[in-house]
């Protein structure tokens, strides 16, 4: 595949980078990335990946745009209220870069459809807001041997890590199992600073581009945490998989995906 003059100009700031160059840009154009969740994290991820020229991007979300989303979900506008989030995000991504193909999946991702869906993609981005989805994405990615980027945000805090099959611990190595209903606050209950979604989502886009182009070091075996109150980042080394993990360990006890019950939002904080 040869880059057209328009592509050379559009992606010139990538091509200029020694670590990316024309080869890296072509890899991006040929890459397929699935973004699950078209909200706070999914918006900046989708926009940056589209701008970067990731050739095929899937976005999955069942929800529609709500007024309370607009404080942080920057791909959606006031005029998009009521519209499916995946459609709104797809339109924003295509407006930035008509060069990319966006597949919009307006549906709930569950144990019945996730494996088939992620199989089509090279890298998965978890932009979901609940633990049921996070464990489902982790388990499905381990089973399908797909790399993915995990992230979570809450209040003024954010975290992310990257899973690459066979190279480091998975999400379940670190967090074992679903916390019970209402044990852990969510953004909907506890709030989140809008720019936190931008910071962490952009870092997920960074991991994705680095994975595709084979650049630098990924957050494998490391949890990067960001505290917006103190403006401090920490890279916490994660222990390697101890072999006892229920999904990626030597003798996995989880052999089939399951759908956890979505915790309702009743916690008052």
């Amino acid at each position: 595949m040869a880059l057209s003059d328009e592509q050379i100009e559009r992606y010139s700031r990538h091509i200029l980078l020694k670590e990316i160059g024309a080869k890296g840009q072509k890899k991006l154009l040929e890459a397929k990335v699935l973004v699950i969740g078209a909200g706070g994290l999914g918006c900046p991820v989708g926009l940056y990946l589209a701008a970067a020229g990731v050739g095929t991007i899937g976005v999955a979300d069942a929800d529609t745009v709500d007024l309370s989303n607009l404080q942080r979900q920057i791909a959606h506008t006031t005029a998009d209220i009521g519209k499916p989030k995946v459609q709104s995000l797809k339109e924003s991504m295509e407006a930035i870069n008509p060069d990319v193909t966006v597949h919009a999946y307006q549906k709930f991702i569950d144990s019945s459809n996730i494996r088939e869906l992620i199989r089509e993609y090279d890298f998965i981005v978890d932009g979901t807001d609940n633990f049921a989805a996070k464990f489902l994405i982790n388990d499905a990615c381990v089973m399908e041997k797909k790399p993915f980027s995990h992230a979570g945000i809450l209040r003024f805090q954010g975290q992310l890590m990257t899973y690459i099959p066979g190279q480091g611990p998975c999400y379940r190595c670190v967090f074992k199992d679903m916390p019970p209903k209402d044990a852990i606050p969510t953004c909907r209950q506890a709030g989140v600073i809008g720019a936190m979604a931008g910071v962490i989502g952009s870092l997920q886009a960074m991991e994705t581009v680095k994975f595709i182009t084979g650049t630098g070091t990924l957050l494998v075996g490391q949890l990067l945490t960001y505290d917006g109150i103190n403006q401090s980042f920490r890279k916490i080394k994660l222990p390697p998989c101890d072999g006892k993990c229920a999904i990626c360990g030597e003798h996995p006890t989880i052999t089939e995906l399951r759908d956890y019950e979505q915790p309702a939002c009743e916690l008052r904080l």
Partner: protein
Amino acid sequence: MFITVAGEKKEVKDGLLLKELIEQEKVQTPQYVTVSLNDEFIETADRDQVVLKDGDTVEFLYFMGGGAWH
């Protein structure tokens, strides 16, 4: 003795149990926080048996949701 907790060096009393440290640090929802000690995960049930030593490194890994999807 000195230990490193979440990246910060701290003086603690000799023979401190991991469980006591967690209380001392006022870790929120401690039963749902993953704890690593010197690059190893510690089972929640073992916390009251783990005696900290000088130079130990303890990290707390918190559950975090986020994004927006349901």
